């Protein structure tokens, strides 16, 4: 707490509560162009402006710290290293929304993080930043931490709300959106940890200043959690617009592919987003350098592009097996499907079975199109985006790595002995660059 205060911490709370109205805070957040850092990338200011404000009905802000998208591990670090930045963001955001009680929903596995947050909250309360009549402004706020129970689906905002109400994490049918009917039927905003932490900087320095960072409509900085076969896995805060090639190969970031191997594929924004082969993640179809931004990564749509998503950057080297990885992700979605919608509940299970048999040398050529068919029938036919999230990795893996799937079917014995390797989607960089 002392360290955070010395570095100018909680100045945003003083500024917002003493000199600004809630609408002025909202206006700054709108100007900043900040977009949801949980994966969807929806403009935060716009989301806030949808919040219904009926007379006499409490409103709630809920922070989504149910981080569990494979490849994503940024929020945990943010909360452990700098819990006060989240708490400060919660205070100014709650003030902007007119919420007097707010919750931070943390995945249950992270009880040690919950303890850190609880300690930080009590420190903030001692200093008068939480509780009744904060800093004499007349604004009251209570902040609580809620543990989850181990369910990926609770990262979906309506499932999270159900879970916060003490129920199974079954996503709700929208509309009504949480902005109208969320926790206990009251207007609610659910934002990711990183999004909320960014709001205090925006309040302190102004939305226009924030908008100067980044590129185009991808303003600000983003935490990227990099993992897989790289030299330096970890969490990096980047200015949006950084070239992907620099992010992977520069010593400042991932430090290149581990063991001097070559890059095969990247899943750029958490397991749900389409996987791209090396040539397409480094350059777009038009031959332009691919940048770490919402727009550049999406360039080419799903035919040749992907998404920034949650910033879970999974790197696969030449020895990684795309079929095995796709099977693994599909098993994940099958396990995590809440079971409400038949296309997702059944479809993920069938995709897992079919992928398993291809990976273990019992596949048929027709299985590949069967997978494409099942994935297409899940996509868009479920209440929540978990269905899409399960379909995209399968669809994209077959789109870009079809020959590897066919090889598994054609060479069942060989495919048990070794991996397919780099083949057609070769890393376009000269070999020396990969080793540098």
């Amino acid at each position, binding site marked *: 707490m002392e360290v955070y205060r010395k570095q100018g911490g909680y100045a945003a709370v003083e500024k917002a509560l003493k000199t600004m109205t809630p609408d002025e805070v909202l206006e700054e957040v709108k100007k900043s162009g900040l977009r949801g850092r949980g994966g969807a990338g929806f403009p935060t200011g716009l989301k806030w402006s949808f919040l219904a404000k009926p007379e006499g009905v409490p409103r709630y802000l809920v922070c989504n710290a149910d981080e569990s998208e*494979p490849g994503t591990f940024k929020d945990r670090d943010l909360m452990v290293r700098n819990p006060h930045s989240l708490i400060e963001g919660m205070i100014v955001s709650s003030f902007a929304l007119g919420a007097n009680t707010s919750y931070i929903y943390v995945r*249950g*596995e992270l009880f040690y993080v919950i303890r850190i947050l609880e300690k930080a909250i009590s420190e903030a309360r001692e200093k008068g930043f939480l509780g009744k009549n904060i800093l004499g402004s007349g604004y009251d706020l209570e902040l609580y931490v809620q543990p989850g*129970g181990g369910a990926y689906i609770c990262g979906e905002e309506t499932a999270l709300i159900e879970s916060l109400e003490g129920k*199974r994490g079954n996503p709700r049918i929208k509309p009504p959106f949480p902005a109208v009917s969320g926790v206990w039927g009251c207007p609610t905003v659910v934002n990711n940890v990183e999004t909320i932490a960014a709001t205090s900087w925006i309040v302190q320095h102004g939305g226009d200043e924030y908008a100067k960072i980044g590129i185009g409509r991808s303003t600000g900085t983003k935490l990227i*959690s990099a*993992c*897989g*076969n790289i030299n330096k*896995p970890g969490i990096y805060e980047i200015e949006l617009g950084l070239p992907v090639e620099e992010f992977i190969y520069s010593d400042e970031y991932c430090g290149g592919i581990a063991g001097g191997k070559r890059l095969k594929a990247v899943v750029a924004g958490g397991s749900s987003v389409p996987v791209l082969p090396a040539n397409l993640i480094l350059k777009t179809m038009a031959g332009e350098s691919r940048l770490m931004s919402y727009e550049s990564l999406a360039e080419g749509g799903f035919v040749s592009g992907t998404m920034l998503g949650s910033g879970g950057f999974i790197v696969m080297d030449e020895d990684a097996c795309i079929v095995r990885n796709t099977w693994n992700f599909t098993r994940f979605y099958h396990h995590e499907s809440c079971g409400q919608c038949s296309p997702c509940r059944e479809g993920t299970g069938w995709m897992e079975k079919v992928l398993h048999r291809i990976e273990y040398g019992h596949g048929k050529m027709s299985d590949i199109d069967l997978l494409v068919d099942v994935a297409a029938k899940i996509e868009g036919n479920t209440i929540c985006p978990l269905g899409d999230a399960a379909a995209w990795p399968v669809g994209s893996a077959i789109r870009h790595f079809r020959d590897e799937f066919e090889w598994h079917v054609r060479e069942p014995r060989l495919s048990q002995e070794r991996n397919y390797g780099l083949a057609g989607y070769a890393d376009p960089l000269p070999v020396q660059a990969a080793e540098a």
Partner: protein
Amino acid sequence: MDIDTREIRFSAERLAEVYEIIGRYPEGRQKSALLPVLHIAQAEFDNWLSPEVMDYVADLLGIQPIEVYEVASFYTMFNLKPVGKYVLEVCRTGPCCLVGAEKLQSHLETKLGIKPGETTPDGMFTLKTVECLAACGFGPVMQVGATYYERLTPEKADELLEQFRKENKRATYC
């Protein structure tokens, strides 16, 4: 397990904790306390939720037992069967597998002579495979109680098993 003979009741301190949690929600919304209270109950009663324990929680919160059962069976952190003193939760999701999680899992299976979901005959270890623990950059990862053990190798896992055997104290989430 001596759970059948023990009276199922929280200590005074735990009860105070439960009432503090209930106070976090508006009046009449005490059901919201269900997940946190189930975590406490699991930690208090041998790291699993027997039907009797779940009934006790239902009673405390003034809700129907089925409302507790359906929640306890939905979330993976709640054990509905007795478990060993140390539940070894090995992440089996993609990013961890890229850096050797499958090797770690099969090492533990061989070493302990059990498959995922099983408990060693001495009641010491339960092996459980879990989905993404959100520590992908530091894989392979294993969670035991509240602690994450990261960048594991078979050798480091062996050392941990030894350490647990020496400590011989039940590991819970909270």
